[in-house]
């Protein structure tokens, strides 16, 4: 399997904490507990790394996270990632960097083995094992 180099993440530890809070807001844990929150799952580093590959996106993300945290402290007296879920959702809805970020969040989250398992898939890449199709040999025939 290819390994991903995670060494070059240009966000500070504080940025990454805020990002984890943002990710837990975009994709929170499910009520039944089957799906973890994206921040708790540890997607922040990968999201940051993927943003770094899209021209201009990491800069947008960094300034967006700092502004968000700043207004969280100013308006609610606490860093963003320490706010309760409803307050985080409200604050985040006002941010313009959410749209490009949410795409990167989905990309990182929906390839994680724990999420694949929660979706009912085997937690592995498609190759080399592939899949067994159900009912082989019992296919309907076309009515020529």
């Amino acid at each position: 399997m290819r390994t991903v180099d995670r060494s070059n993440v240009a966000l500070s530890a504080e940025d990454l904490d805020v990002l984890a809070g943002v990710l837990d807001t975009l994709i929170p844990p499910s009520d039944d507990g089957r799906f973890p929150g994206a921040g708790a799952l540890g997607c922040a580093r990968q999201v940051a790394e993927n943003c770094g590959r899209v021209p201009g996106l990491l800069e947008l993300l960094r300034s967006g996270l700092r502004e968000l945290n700043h207004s969280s402290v100013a308006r609610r007296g606490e860093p963003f990632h320490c706010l309760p879920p409803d307050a985080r959702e409200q604050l985040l809805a006002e941010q313009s960097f959410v749209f490009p970020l949410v795409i990167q969040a989905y990309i990182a989250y929906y390839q994680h083995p724990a999420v694949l398992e929660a979706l009912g898939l085997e937690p592995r890449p498609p190759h080399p094992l592939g899949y067994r199709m159900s009912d082989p040999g019992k296919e309907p025939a076309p009515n020529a």
Partner: protein
Amino acid sequence: MARDETVDVLIVGAGASAAALAWSLAETKMQILCIEQGDWVRPQDLPGNDLDWEARHLTDFHFSPNVRRRPEDYPVNDSASPIQVSMFNAVGGSTILYAAHFPRFRPDDFRVRSVDGVGEDWPVDYETLAPFYDLNAEMMGVSGLPGDPAYPPKQLPLPPVPLGKLGAKLAAGFERLGWHWWPSDSAIITQNYRGRAACVNAGTCLVGCPQGAKGSVDVTYWPEALRRGVRLRTRCRVREVTVNEQGMASGVVYYDAEGKERYQPAHVVVLACNGIGTPRLLLASRSKHFPDGLANRSGLVGKNLMFHPYAMVMGVFDEPLEGYKGPTGCCIMSQEFYRTDLRRGFVRGYSFEILRGFGPISTVLWGMQQGLVPWGRNHHRAVEELFDHVAGMVAICEDLPEETNCVTLDPELRDEHGIPAPRIHYRLSENSQRMLAHAVDRAREVLEAAGARETFVQSPLPFAGWHLMGTARMGRDPHTSVVNEWGRCHDVKNLFIIDGSIFVTSAAVNPTNTIQALALYIADQMKRRLANLFD
């Protein structure tokens, strides 16, 4: 400039058509060299081996060279076109990414003017190409079910790909309406075949097949052509085809893997750079004999670009469909609306190609695009309602040739070697728009008949410029065509074109089987005429 040793036949491009021609010509024992700007793609480097395979579909395995921006890609200015160009540059060409849906043209598709009074008739017919379709089926490893009433009888070496739950569900929709459907002919091996291992239904075909079960030509024709003595030089980009004092092709100037300019002389030059790359190269090859571009005395190089406008219609079903299993684009097809019926408001027609479902990332991004997947507290419920519950189809519409739809050279945009990039001028005709609208309505009808509770439409599908045809078309008259009935340029008697550029009309099916049957036919004609090839 460094000069290489002269070869008998020089092929530019190593995609679907080049591989077939190289393999066929190899038995002549001529010195055959192919020059390709891309490299071999190693199975272990393909995305399907990793959990991030869907993510790489959005980056280094994107359909568009403008998004991938690999060193071997050249930019394409398609910003003013409603349909963007999709291709891949490597040994295997665009077959590395193709879905391997592998229908033949129907006999009438070669006689569009005679049948419907539009487009032009081809200078070859189905009967002439039939033995080459058969040969191609053997070499590529085509699976399918004989007996489709839409076609003359044909034999295929392998049984069809499984329909799976999803295919059976949609087939039931077609049955309910009494519409034609049939398991697709697919260049995917369903059993071990000629040293290749059978498909394992992993569903990553559109980012390459690490199993080697999909018939991309790097695993079909190329290994056999190389064993027969053909040479293949990779990471070399051709800048122009040169001509001698007599106006015959004398070779090519290219940039080698180190970026050095070199000259490769040849007795015969064959262009196989696809429907965009070939007119680009011809238009960039100007000389005193050909001030408007090589082999362009007709003025038709780059003109009559055809894409096949696509509509994608997806339905959401209540039950899980196992749609992430099985070859992505190969399942069943329908040609119920293939022939002209003027009561529909357009000429010619379309086929439906049924798609498998999406993987998790594609489901969520598609759902987001449709406004079905929010972020926040309702996210998981929305995703669970969609994942493995989406199935649908694309309509492949016949595009008619129009001179205003064309490829020219961009006055500013260039690749990293300074070669002008192609620029796409394309407008959806009234006929295509009406056809797309009809197809969308019929697709919705059949999805509803199959049990879909909601349907969603993208029409035209933007990144669906993957069938590149018509930009150096065939014909008997040098005033109205670029190559003759066996692929030789009217204006340059040792220059051949074998890719989708030479198509006269587009039919309403995927083109690669026909591109390769034509390449094999042209190779056969060359072999028969070796003694007087340039007469």
